[in-house]
């Protein structure tokens, strides 16, 4: 069983807020003119990460199923004169890169994941094994932004959210504990636990115990 202590947690829950409103709300949180170029997901993930004060030796794990939905929509709508800015912004881990480039904050290890039904289990496993590789601290973050025409076609998130939690091998100052047990019965039924479900559990700081992927049981407890 892999075990880590949660030493910090920050969440953003704008729900159905439009990107322009998010941009306006966060304009004092980022350097001048930065918010104009950032996506809603970049702002939300950046806001969740900012209090954690990343360092170069942190390992950063990022999970998003749909990632830069609005940039993808805008990029596709820009054809046949494809937008270079929207193209580079549409790349999967752009949200995190926007947030860290603004602060010129390097990070040695950055693992951006995507996925569907088992994305939370996979991201948590990557984070817990990174801790085992000698990183001083692991940051697990994730989020989505709400789509427009891609959402109408069932190809985007129906809500925006973001989270970032710091994981440590030490219980000092911990606010919670996270475990991932690989010994569970591979044939046992899993609960539906998408990235939004992980966010909801974290946002409410609810305890959790469930099989979230085949042979992957997650427990979360809070101090």
């Amino acid at each position, binding site marked *: 069983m892999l075990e880590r202590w949660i030493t910090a947690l920050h969440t953003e829950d704008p729900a159905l807020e439009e990107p322009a409103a998010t941009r306006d709300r966060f304009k004092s949180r980022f350097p001048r003119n930065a918010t104009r170029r950032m996506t809603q997901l970049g702002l939300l993930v950046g806001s969740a990460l900012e209090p954690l004060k990343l360092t170069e030796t942190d390992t950063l794990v990022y999970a998003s199923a*749909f990632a830069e939905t609005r940039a993808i929509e805008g990029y596709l709508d820009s054809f046949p004169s*494809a937008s270079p800015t929207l193209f*580079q912004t549409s790349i*999967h881990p752009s949200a995190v890169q926007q947030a860290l*480039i603004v602060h010129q*904050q*390097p990070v*040695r290890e950055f693992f951006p994941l995507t996925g569907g039904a088992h994305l939370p289990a996979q991201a948590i*496993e990557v984070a817990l094994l990174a801790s085992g590789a000698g990183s001083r601290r692991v940051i697990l973050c994730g989020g989505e932004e709400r789509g427009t025409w891609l959402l109408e076609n069932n190809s985007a998130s129906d809500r925006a959210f973001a989270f970032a939690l710091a994981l440590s091998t030490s219980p000092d100052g911990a606010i919670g504990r996270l475990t991932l047990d690989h010994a569970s019965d591979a044939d046992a039924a899993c609960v539906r636990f998408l990235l939004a479900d992980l966010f909801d559990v974290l946002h409410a700081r609810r305890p959790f115990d469930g099989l979230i992927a085949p042979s992957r049981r997650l427990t979360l407890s809070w101090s």
Partner: protein
Amino acid sequence: MSVPSTSIHLSACGALTAFGDESTTLAALLDGRRALAPVPVLGADGGDPVPMALCAGRSFDETAPPGWLAPLRALTDRIPGEGWGSPRRPVFVTSSNFGVGSLHAFRRTGDAAHLAYGTPHRCVDWLAETLGWGPNVTTFSHACVSAHLGLEQASRVLAANLADEALVFSFDFLSPFVAGGFHALKILNADLPTPYQDRETGSIGLGDGAAFAVLTRDRGDMKFVAQSLHNEMHHFTANQADGSGFSACLAPLLPFTAGRRFWLKGHGTGTLEAGRLEAGVLARHFPGFPLVSWKGALGHTLGSCGLVELTIAATAIRHGRAPGTVGSSGPTFTPEVVLSPFEIGAFDSVLCTSNAFGGAHAALLLSHA
């Protein structure tokens, strides 16, 4: 910190490029052939001709299901073993674009059939079902260093004894979505790329690519000596001019390269600034060690390039002869750049590097087991 991977072996690997499998590709590169040819950047919608290397027999314009499945099956049929995607045999899929070309096709035609492949997880779920994989499939997407993340995580899962074997599978097939974007960035023009060549203007080409690698703790004729990652987060499309970000990626590998005689398979897309920086940093750290890039022949296979080129390098090691930097001529950025095929029997390992959007860097050292 990145991890030494001395206990992780490469037990099997295979690749698909526009030339064919890894053996056909190696032979073509040794002959100095280029798969790149001018193709209208927007496919059926026309546009400027740009250099692309497409797998034979597939349409550049997306179909539903994607036409790249047929050539991909020729590769996946060669993956050894069964039960991939089960609890002890995880799969790590890496790509930059997945089936995003299908979203472009949907927006262009309105045909909802394309949506079944448009998002990363729908594309991977479809592939997993088609290939008979179980649900233990983890997916990374980090532009052109994506494949390195799969290799790193597979190594960690094996080192933690959470798996008996691990399959890393990388793919990226071109579409108007991708080609249109690179063309908009003004680095894709009518000129064929000449990696590491000091000329007036740079250019890149794009290519289809896919590859697999089976990693184990104890079987295989090659092993991963060490792997390293670094993300400088300086600018989306530029590295720090002094090369410090790429140097930071190489630094953890230096103790493992000491005393070794190796050659370098660089990233080498054909852009001037990045190529000059990359060749300069590698020459500074490893003076006299031969450096090659194959993207002047294969095009940049994007999220799959790390594994495609690793597989070709492994095939070259078994063959005893490595291709030079196909398509380039002098003057080169550094004297270490090798333009012609060369004998590698006297070398004990190869250092493979990749670089990506956002100042992401990856490197690994592969040696005989």
